[in-house]
């Protein structure tokens, strides 16, 4: 019930933006080519939905994100485990990772196209690079930041290192891991749109760029809003997941 009320409250802001948008277009300050009316955009949205081009673009982009993001997660998790279990090794690769962390993934696109062509590989690599570091940093923080006092409880119980990891460190790190995933998926979404605008013939980014070359502002706006809604939906899914996996976390936060 409280949830519904919150959603209805947030609807007011949407209504306000739509209203201003409608008023501005009715005043004919700009041509409808520069800024089409909301009704026109809605109609285009329905047509694109019916023709299936929107869902197809979504499917292509989502597939790329899913593959790149999953690879990044597994890789980040493994690197983090090496970090925690073999700390003496970390000085050897720390700086190298740090250099890569500061390189914007999109800057690699020209090279990636040279090496891999304009197929799926460059996009997946861009997503991997975009989401790897936020996940690595957060998983690291969760595992390394484990409460020493809880680990001592494990030591009193004569836990092996594997048991310490499984029964204390991992559950302790789950909130951090989920935060990392949440940030990672946001970064992936940004990166994939960028990559698809530079070199692609399909996907949501391509859809927007293609709309521009065809002078279809309405289509571009549909694509942009759709990406925003996609992000909102993913956020919502994460919230559901957190509530499911972390009932204690929810209880804690709901008390503050």
């Amino acid at each position: 019930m409280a949830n519904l009320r919150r959603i209805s409250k947030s609807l007011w802001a949407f209504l306000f933006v739509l209203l201003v948008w409608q008023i501005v277009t009715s005043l004919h300050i700009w041509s409808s080519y520069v800024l089409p009316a909301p009704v026109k955009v809605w109609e285009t949205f329905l047509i694109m939905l019916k023709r299936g081009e929107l869902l197809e673009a979504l499917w292509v982009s989502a597939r790329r994100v899913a593959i790149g993001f999953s690879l990044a997660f597994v890789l980040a998790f493994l690197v983090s485990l090496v970090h925690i279990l073999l700390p003496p090794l970390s000085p050897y690769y720390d700086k190298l990772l740090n250099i890569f962390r500061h390189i914007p993934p999109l800057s690699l696109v020209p090279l990636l196209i040279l090496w891999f062509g304009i197929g799926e590989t460059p996009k997946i690599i861009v997503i991997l690079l975009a989401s790897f570091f936020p996940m690595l940093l957060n998983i690291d923080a969760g595992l390394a930041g484990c409460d020493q006092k809880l680990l001592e409880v494990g030591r009193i119980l004569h836990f092996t290192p594997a048991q310490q990891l499984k029964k204390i460190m991992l559950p302790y790190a789950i909130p951090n891991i989920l935060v990392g995933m949440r940030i990672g998926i946001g970064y992936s979404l940004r990166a994939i749109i960028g990559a698809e605008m530079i070199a692609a013939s399909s996907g949501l980014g391509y859809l927007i760029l293609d709309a521009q070359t065809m002078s279809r502002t309405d289509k571009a706006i549909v694509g942009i809003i759709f990406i925003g809604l996609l992000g909102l939906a993913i956020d919502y899914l994460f919230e559901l997941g957190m509530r499911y996996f972390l009932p204690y976390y929810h209880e804690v936060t709901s008390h503050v």
Partner: protein
Amino acid sequence: MSELIINALNKSYTIDKEKHVVLRELSLSVDCQNITIVLGKSGCGKTTLLRLISGLEKPDSGTITTPPALKLGMMFQEARLMPWLTCYQNIVFGLPPHFNQAKITELIKTVGLTGFEEAYPARLSGGMQQRTALARTLALESQLILMDEPFAALDYFTRVSMQQELLRIKKLASTGIIFVTHNIDEALTLGDSILVMSQGTIAKKIILPANQNRDILSAPFIAYKRAILASMQIH
């Protein structure tokens, strides 16, 4: 005779390149069937002593000899519960997969947590959290439980009721306890024997008669209190 014997224990920490001696040539023997109190003011080394006995830390020199196959349990000043586990899951945290559920149900009743099994630690009061920690320690059926000021963070009334419960549970379970505290009343209420610690060593050992009246306001207890304070050089 099940005895824990400590011989010439030394331990020091280096903080900011300065050496702080915590325990010096500390020797003692503890009867593993009784409640032994280690009493002393903050910083006298009593927590360090307990951490050395538990194996969480290693001594610089000296030996700790425990009875063969002694199972140790430990309770800390904080409850140290796993926040992601319910009260029940915390209690069985250290147990093998096929534990005796009826025994645990009985234990939960003994420590007064019936009805709170599904609550997460964040929902429990400080006293309830310590009860959960106590149940977790008792569930292991260790022969000797090390307690590091487990009731120090509780309010006076909760602390007194937890002390009474501990005495009641001690009668049911055949477990020995080494109990660290800075509270003289707590020491006199719980202890079969009291080791007074001062400056990293045992300053005095007091053995209380088994039939001792535990009224902390009675004349013999006030006499004990004086003796303890004198041995700690506090007037």
